């Protein structure tokens, strides 16, 4: 009997939450931003981008050296 009570309670909570979701509230990742975890993603992406940029800059420099060598010949 106890388990049935729990299940009905759970069902009730789910139905209430789904009703509130339908009533015009659009779910956004506000919680994610509030808890601050989105900064982790931003930091990771920034590092990935900066890493790729440094790599491209190194290729750029190596190419400049090569151009110098060829043009001096």
């Amino acid at each position, binding site marked *: 009997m106890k388990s049935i009570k729990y299940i009905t309670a759970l069902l009730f909570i789910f139905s209430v939450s789904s009703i509130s979701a339908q009533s015009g509230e*659009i779910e956004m990742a506000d919680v994610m*931003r509030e808890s601050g975890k989105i900064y982790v*993603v931003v930091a990771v992406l*920034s590092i990935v*981008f*900066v890493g790729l940029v440094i790599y491209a800059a190194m290729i750029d420099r190596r*190419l400049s050296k*090569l151009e110098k060598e*060829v043009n001096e010949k």
Partner: protein
Amino acid sequence: MLKYWWKILAVILVLYTIINGFLIEVPALPILHESIRNLFFHVTMWFAMIFLCGTSWIYSMMYLSSSKIEHDIIASEAANVGVMLGAIGILTGMIWANFTWGAPWVNDPKLNGAAITMLIYLAYFVLRNSMDEEQKRAKVSSVYNIFAFIMLVVFLYVLPRMTDSLHPGNGGNGTFSDLDIDNTMRTVFYPAIIGWTLIGVWFLTLRIRIKKLSYQRESELINSEN
């Protein structure tokens, strides 16, 4: 004045896009939810692609009037970077479409137009590789490339606007600017376009320089043989 100031600008603008693109407030919309932020990453790829393919178009026309092989090198390398950006644009669009339109590929005129455009540009590279004689290759592919860019504009910008498209701003669909009432998204979107485009131009200059080096070496080898 630093010669590479615009590369630094490009990096700063894209970093700004990555940081603010995730942190600013965006309009809360059904279906889209937070994925509206893809505007800063998916849509900007296409802007950069158009810019590079347009560059390619201009240099193809310049080649036809000047016959300078340098112009043809720039035209082909710009098309190459443009296609690379377009491929990223299609793949990111497929992910976005999968979660908002329900399938990675829907029968949308803009999607099919993008696919046709990519095939047109792939044919440009096939055409180039099929000819060994340098001047002939440059001339024929320049003429083809001029038509290719016109087809790109038709397939990506004219036809989708004449029929119904799921893409914003097409076929009576509202644009993002209608939703972005307080213009917060614009503060990231415009810098993002400039930043990603400049990154594409950076890659373009790298490719042109490599091509010129190998071209120089080839002509040196030919001269030493004679």
